[in-house]
């Protein structure tokens, strides 16, 4: 998928534990782990807002668009 999740990078930069972030945004650690590994189909705006609020960052700091070479024709 061209959208990659850089949440683990942000967590490391901010020195925040996954457990604390999961608790703040109100999702399970298991779901946060799936989000970090990009194994989810989507992210709710509410989740994204809570992540940005806690990590003091922008959505672009967490999500990155990397087009597939095959898609560029």
């Amino acid at each position: 998928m061209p959208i990659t999740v850089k949440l683990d990078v942000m967590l490391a930069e901010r020195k925040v534990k996954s457990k604390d972030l999961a608790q703040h945004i109100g999702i399970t650690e298991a779901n946060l782990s799936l989000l970090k590994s990009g194994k989810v189909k989507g992210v709710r705006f509410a989740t994204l807002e809570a992540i940005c609020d806690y990590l003091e960052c922008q959505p672009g700091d967490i999500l990155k668009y990397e087009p597939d070479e095959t898609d560029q024709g």
Partner: protein
Amino acid sequence: MQHRPNSLTVLKWVIYVSFLGAIVPVIWKWVDPSSFSVFSKDDIVEAYGGYARLALWQRFAGFSVNALPQACLAYALYCLWRLIQQLEAGDWFGQKNESYWRAIGQAMLWYVVTNWLGETLLILVLTATNGPGHRELTVSISNYDVLGLIPALMAFVIARIVSLARAQRDELNEIV
């Protein structure tokens, strides 16, 4: 303590009563027609000379013809009962629910078919021992037969809705 919706409990009792209502009269009618006639009359059998003139095999055949649609109805009620058990367990959109709805639809469809053919077969059985020229083969259709298709179609539609709802739920589960 798990909350159990009251309407489901009421529906279960409706199923128990309906189950008895579907099975008992058919058995009673063919086993002891004289006592059954006090409460209800079978117009077809009476119109063709009553139970007394029937041979044993005709009674068995008549019972089978009458019992077949009731068995379909009983199976549909059983599936509905199992479905309610699933709902009580909190599973509204499971694979089993979809299967039960489809089974109810199929059972109701067979109920309509066997009920419709039942009258034809019953008259054939009742007149089978008559002399040549006095045997009958009748085919009829009534509003009641057609109306019976509505619950069958509703069950198939609900099965489809359950299937789509489950797909949406699964997709939502993948969004955090």
